């Protein structure tokens, strides 16, 4: 599965139009905090999250619902609505901090330099508008092109994501497509302006497993081929295993473990990651009761003090009542734990 890679230019355009060196990571998130100020209290949906993604690289952001992974994605695009807002940290897109950008400046980036794919394709496409309308407007919002040219690009984009007879499909309405095809359309829309970064929020969760496989394959091919940085948000470890280069595991708004996919999955250090991997039913444990992580995700309004995983962790003790910092026990690995699984094989 080798994609033809065009020889990359030596520099790339940052958000403000200045040129930055090619090897600048497409996205660097530093100590991001996004809090929601609700009547019931402050919900720290994202609480000190850091990671980076290079061009052509795929980062998997893994966590349960409530772990803050989706809010992280929205924070990058500036789509966090009241009562939430970014309260700290930096988001460096091509070297520029966009965390404080107003809506106008963000609108220039959205859909053009940074694109997002959502989870449920039925509701992300407007049911009363045709596909071509929804694709052409994505182009015309950022460039002055004629409708004919825009339609041509839309057609190509549909072909690129593997939709047959794109000409007819353009005239159709979203409800005339299957779930998998709708998601392909969403991906096509995301790619249509050749963004530097795509944030994909659980795009295959609502689809059949076979379709999921196809889409994962196509997305990986496209991302590598166009050297687009891709953040794939999911709760499903197996997706990450086949797709991503790096992975960040999130729990209760914090990154608890990160590293390359191979290393993290072969040798998980954090007890949570350990539990996640251990709970995947696999052939090796035939006949044995399924292992699970005891307890439930705590409500973000009532996090336990110190390490958020403490209440469910078999290795927790008094030390864990203080929140652990990020440490790097192994090269290119980071974890947030006082008792990582540093012994031999997991």
């Amino acid at each position, binding site marked *: 599965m080798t994609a033809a890679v065009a020889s990359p230019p030596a520099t790339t355009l940052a958000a403000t139009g200045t040129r930055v060196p090619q090897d600048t990571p497409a996205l660097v998130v530093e100590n991001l905090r996004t809090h929601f100020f609700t009547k019931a209290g402050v919900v720290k949906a994202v609480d000190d999250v850091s990671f980076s993604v290079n061009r052509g690289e795929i980062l998997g952001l893994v966590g349960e619902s409530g772990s803050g992974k989706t809010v992280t994605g929205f924070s990058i695009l500036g789509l966090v609505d009241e009562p939430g807002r970014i309260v700290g940290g930096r988001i460096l897109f091509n070297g520029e901090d966009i965390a404080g950008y107003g809506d106008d400046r963000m609108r220039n980036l959205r859909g053009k330099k940074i694109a997002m794919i*959502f989870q449920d394709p039925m509701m992300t496409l407007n049911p009363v508008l045709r596909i071509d309308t929804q694709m052409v407007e994505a182009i015309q919002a950022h460039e002055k092109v004629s409708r004919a040219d825009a339609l041509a690009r839309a057609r190509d984009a549909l072909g690129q994501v593997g939709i047959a007879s794109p000409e007819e499909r353009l005239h159709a309405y979203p409800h005339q497509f299957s779930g998998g095809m709708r998601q392909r359309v969403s991906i096509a829309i995301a790619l249509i302006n050749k963004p530097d970064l795509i944030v994909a929020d659980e795009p295959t969760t609502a689809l059949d497993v076979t379709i999921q496989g196809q889409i994962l394959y196509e997305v990986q091919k496209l991302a590598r081929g166009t050297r687009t940085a891709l953040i794939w948000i999911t709760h499903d470890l197996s997706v990450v295993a086949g797709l991503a280069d790096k992975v960040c595991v999130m729990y209760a708004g914090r990154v608890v473990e990160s590293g390359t996919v191979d290393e993290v999955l072969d040798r998980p250090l954090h007890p949570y990651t350990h539990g996640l991997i251990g709970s995947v039913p696999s052939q090796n444990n035939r006949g044995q009761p399924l292992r699970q992580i005891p307890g439930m995700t705590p409500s973000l309004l009532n996090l336990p003090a110190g390490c958020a995983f403490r209440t469910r962790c078999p290795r927790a003790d008094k030390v864990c009542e203080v929140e652990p910092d990020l440490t790097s026990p192994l090269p290119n690995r980071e974890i947030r734990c006082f008792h990582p699984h540093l012994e031999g094989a997991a």
Partner: protein
Amino acid sequence: MTVFIIRRLMQAALVIFVMSVIVFIGISVVSNPIDILINPDFTQEEYERAVRALGLDRPLYEQYFVFLGNALQGNLGDSFVFGQPALELIAHRIPATMELAFGSLFLSIVLGIPLGVYAGLRPDSRVSKTIMAGSIFGFSLPSFWVGIMLIMIFAVELGWLPSTGRGETVELMGMQVSFLTWDGLQHLFLPALNLALVNISLVIRVARAGTREAALQDYVRFARAKGLSSSRIVLVHILKNIMIPIVTILGLELGSLIAFSVVTETIFAWPGMGKLLIDSINVSDRPIVVAYLMLIVCIFVVINLIVDVLYSVLDPRVRLQDVKQ
């Protein structure tokens, strides 16, 4: 699409037929059907002669068929007061009432939708809360009282607009219409506003609810993620989605508009069907009442049909469902 229309047309015809039976039976049960067609002031001899001449001494179902036959030919009896065919008299007044009704519809759309959408986009702002409070008033105040107030304020106190009557008319397609003259518009404005007030309130509420709901939908977020401008999001994405409930409401209410025009026409002395109806009821001119009833039924049925067709145009999901059937 044609199948759809034909099917609806047949349903419409059925409803009209059923209504004619109900009207006939209703009038027969409550009062002598003979009285519909014959002036009760006749002498006994004239009365009996007329009865026989019109075949009214026949059994009821025969009479009904005569009635139906006559009705289909456009003959619903002569007015006792004016001596002319009742249907003609009413039909003559239809343009005036339609002008009023459509003027109100126009105001409902032009005022109701922008106000409602604004209230939906900024639900917690002061302006929005004022709009909603206003809509409660518009909705609950009896329209005749509002009409009186409008006359009092704008015509009597301020003298800006005329208080009664219809303005100058010009001929358009064989009908007399007044909205094409400035004088006509001045006369049309207050009554149309009066009639529209309930509608405007309803449209505001529906538009607001729809906008609020639409604004929270994923496709709006997705549109923002594509980098679309807010005006495009509101005017294209949101508006198209709320048009369906709005068209429904307007369609349902158009019938009500025509009905309530009875009140508005009375207050503003507007020479439409409604005023004729009230006057006729007050002098017991029954042929006109019957003719009005049948005409109204037909109009309502037509309106329902148009709304159904509009529905399928606006919501592609409905359109395709019918085709599959």
